[in-house]
């Protein structure tokens, strides 16, 4: 990997159209919604007038450039994408450089980095693109040598003629290859022949991230750029009634004080932007600003009122999502009935890099830079709001200092663009930690009512109702009678094959608090309810928790995870006085089982001794990145279970910074044992599925040790 950073985007695009000197191929989707991509060369694309997805380009020196269409927020697409392409292309990773694709809906298809989809969504296209280029290079060599193509093969950036051992480097072949038509069919490599895929290769962005050179949104500087902070309504829907900026304008370095707004789903939040020479001057000046807010016309909820509302909502029938058999009748007659209510908190995303955006808006064009998960949404949004043609809007993704769903939103980018437009200068809008933590959108809090009937030690009837704000219902014109897979996310599907009578429903709770995806979305809270409840059922049925799952999860992949957990933990021989808990959830097509062991220390406080995770994400690219993602997911789950939550008083977020929103620290986190299952299943998500099973596994372990059942998160480990 060339450490001299990624190549400049514009240079890349120019290079791509300079078809003679390089082999550039990419894929595009011939028809909207078509699953199969067509792979063509740059010159064909030009002739056909197709906006080519310039995914790979090989130049005369044999260097390979890749334009990555996903953002890099820690989940490793910076590594996974080149690893896949290099594998099929038969080059070593150090011949490959990568740059981020600018936002463009037509070119790259959906670019949102969410739903753990980087590998999941694009793997076949990426592999085929690499293989297509390889085949074209082989064909070019065969032509030059006038030998049959099947006597040639590619290896390590060269094509080799087997009988004579003649060799030509890719660089020497690109001109000839670029004249060829890409083959319609290519044979992908067999998994056992992989040199790169499946190997724990070091991430190529690591060197940049240990010396401060990785450029995050916060680090972007433009000539003449000013810095802004915005005093926004502390209430989610507040409007500016009046403001006094006389003191602000006298503060050193202040250039502008303007009223701004940003869209938050179907509402608008107003604020006053203070634009200054540097970030700190803007922050200081903000303290001198006086704003009177109009906060009428919407509810000022506090946490207790919100959860009371959810409790009331649980009495309603709600939107039924999945039903089978007859839950009510079976439950009524069951020999044993179990009921429980679970509660999970609202959470801030609290990315280490607070929300920020650099915008440079001109009369007829606009360009923005920032930590961005959804570049194509943002491009469309800006085109609409600025009334500038979409092709004159460039959205540049920097590295993201965490995303977790927050940076897939378009509020901050719109606001920055509007400020730049008004002051006619490039500007960086920085959200202070307090802004980032109190403005939302948040993970919605939820309340679950679970009921089950047991007969002969088996689950005969199972019902779950969820009361929570529905994320989809916030969008303008949303159909509030629809649900969006909310309640069944995270549920291991095979339960529904073994339980004959079930019912799942979602009762959307109304509230003006903006809510948004948070790592693993509804699974992050559903998993807690489901897998805590299954544990309660195992206790009621007097069954070992793994055995009860084994009896109900009659699916190869689940059974393999159960066996693996049993083996690693030494489950059968576990001591009587140790507290072990397990949980298994499914999220974004991956299945993860986790086991936690807890003990009491001499001072009576709980301690986590072991954390074991078994990840089945099917076909995978880089096991070390997967392990890192599971570790990170577990730490994030630990925080949401035991140390932090966002509360509300008078319609405002209470926790403003890390002194109140307490994050897990290094001493809270033991080493972890992560295992990856080997199978031939389709790739599942990697960045999120490790999160949902952790909280229930931990709470089940605490029950096992102490007999105390935790049904409400977060709880204090020191007070159990």
């Amino acid at each position, binding site marked *: 990997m060339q450490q001299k950073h990624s190549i400049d985007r514009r240079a890349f695009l120019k290079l791509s159209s300079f078809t003679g000197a390089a082999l550039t191929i990419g894929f595009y989707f011939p028809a909207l919604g078509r699953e199969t991509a067509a792979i063509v060369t740059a010159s064909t694309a030009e002739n056909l007038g197709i906006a080519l997805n310039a995914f790979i380009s090989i130049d005369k020196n044999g260097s390979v450039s890749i334009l990555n269409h996903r953002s890099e927020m820690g989940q490793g697409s910076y590594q996974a994408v080149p690893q896949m392409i290099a594998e099929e292309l038969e080059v070593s990773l150090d011949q490959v450089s990568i740059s981020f694709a600018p936002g463009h809906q037509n070119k790259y298809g959906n670019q949102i980095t969410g739903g753990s989809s980087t590998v999941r969504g694009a793997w076949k296209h990426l592999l085929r693109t690499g293989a297509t280029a390889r085949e074209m290079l082989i064909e070019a060599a065969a032509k030059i040598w006038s030998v049959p193509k099947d006597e040639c093969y590619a290896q390590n950036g060269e094509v080799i003629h087997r009988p004579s051992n003649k060799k030509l480097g890719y660089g020497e072949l690109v001109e000839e290859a670029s004249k060829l038509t890409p083959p319609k069919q290519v044979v992908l490599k067999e998994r056992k022949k992989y040199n790169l895929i499946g190997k724990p290769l070091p*991430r190529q*962005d690591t060197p940049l991230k240990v010396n401060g050179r990785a450029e995050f949104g916060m680090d972007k500087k433009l000539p003449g750029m000013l810095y802004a902070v915005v005093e926004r309504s502390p209430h989610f829907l507040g409007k500016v009634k009046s403001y006094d900026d006389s003191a602000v304008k006298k503060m050193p370095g202040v250039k502008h004080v303007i009223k701004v707004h940003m869209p938050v789903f179907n509402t608008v939040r107003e604020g006053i932007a203070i634009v200054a020479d540097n*970030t700190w001057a803007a922050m200081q000046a903000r303290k001198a600003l006086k704003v009177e807010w109009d906060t009428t016309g919407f509810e000022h909820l506090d946490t207790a009122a919100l959860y009371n509302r959810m409790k009331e909502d649980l009495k309603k029938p709600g939107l039924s999502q999945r039903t089978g058999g007859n839950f009510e009748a079976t439950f009524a007659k069951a020999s044993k009935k179990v009921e429980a209510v679970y509660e999970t908190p609202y959470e801030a995303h609290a990315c*280490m890099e607070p929300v920020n955006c650099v915008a440079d808006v001109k009369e007829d064009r606009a360009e923005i830079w920032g930590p961005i998960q959804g570049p194509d949404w943002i491009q469309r949004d800006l085109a609409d709001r600025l009334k500038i043609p979409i092709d004159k809007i460039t959205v540049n993704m920097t590295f993201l200092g965490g995303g977790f769903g927050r940076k897939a939103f378009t509020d901050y980018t719109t606001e920055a663009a509007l400020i730049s437009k008004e002051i006619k200068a490039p500007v960086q809008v920085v959200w202070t*930690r307090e802004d980032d933590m109190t403005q939302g959108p948040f993970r919605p809090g939820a309340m679950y009512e679970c009921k089950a009937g047991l007969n002969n030690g088996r689950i005969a009837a199972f019902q779950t109702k969820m009361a929570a704000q529905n994320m989809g219902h916030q969008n303008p014109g949303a159909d509030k009678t629809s649900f969006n897979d909310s309640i069944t996310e995270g549920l291991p599907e095979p339960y529904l094959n073994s339980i004959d009578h079930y019912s799942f429903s979602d009762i959307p709770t109304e509230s003006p608090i903006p809510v948004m995806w948070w790592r693993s979305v509804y699974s992050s809270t559903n998993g807690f309810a489901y897998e805590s409840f299954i544990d309660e059922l195992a206790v009621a049925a007097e069954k070992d928790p793994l055995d009860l799952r084994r009896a109900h999860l009659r699916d190869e992949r689940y059974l393999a995870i159960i066996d693996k957990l049993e083996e690693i933990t030494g489950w059968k021989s576990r001591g009587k006085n140790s507290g072990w808990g397990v949980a298994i959830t499914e999220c974004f097509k991956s299945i993860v089982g986790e086991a936690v062991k807890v003990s009491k220390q001499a001072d009576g406080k709980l301690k986590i001794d072991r954390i074991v995770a078994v990840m089945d994400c099917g076909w995978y690219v880089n096991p070390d990145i997967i392990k890192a993602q599971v570790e990170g997911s577990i730490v994030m789950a630990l925080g949401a279970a035991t140390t932090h939550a966002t509360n509300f008083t008078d319609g405002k977020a209470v926790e403003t910074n890390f002194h109140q929103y307490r994050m897990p620290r290094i001493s809270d986190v033991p080493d972890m044992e992560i295992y990856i299952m080997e199978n031939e299943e389709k790739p599942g998500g990697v960045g999120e599925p490790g999160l949902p099973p952790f909280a229930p596994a931990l709470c089940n372990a605490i029950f096992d040790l102490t007999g105390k059942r935790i049904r409400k998160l977060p709880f204090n480990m020191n007070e159990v």
Partner: protein
Amino acid sequence: MASYKLSINGSSFSVEADPKMPLLWVLRDLLNLTGTKYGCGMSQCGACTVHLNGNAIRSCTMPVSAVGTQKITTIEGLSTDNSHTVQQAWIAEQVPQCGYCQTGQIMSAVALLKRNPNPTDRDIDMAMQGNICRCGTYPRIRKAIHKAAAMMKQPPAKGF
């Protein structure tokens, strides 16, 4: 506004700044040394960690006027080529995920190892307590610090 002469990474820099401006923003906005990060602005997260005469401090709450002639080291001053033992250990253990907190983590780790070349898990937990990582790289940070400690014992380790 006042003039300051700062010694950063072995070079001398002159800046015009408000005396109360925290060193963090002097580094980032006035001197373009953006490897030092803003995370909380109140000494809670460690993203802004730099060294003052070799000790790890939080630059977000250190006014520039308090720096005086003390020697500042930022992540950019650790090495020009990632050759510092701690950077090497960080690469070997593949610590960073998003990477945003890592420059602060590394500066804290370097200061720890200078004080204590043989830290135990507990020593590490104590010394690194002030650095938050939202991505959850803590187990790898622990491993990397142990690794760096071991590497330092083998000449020719560089950087201390």
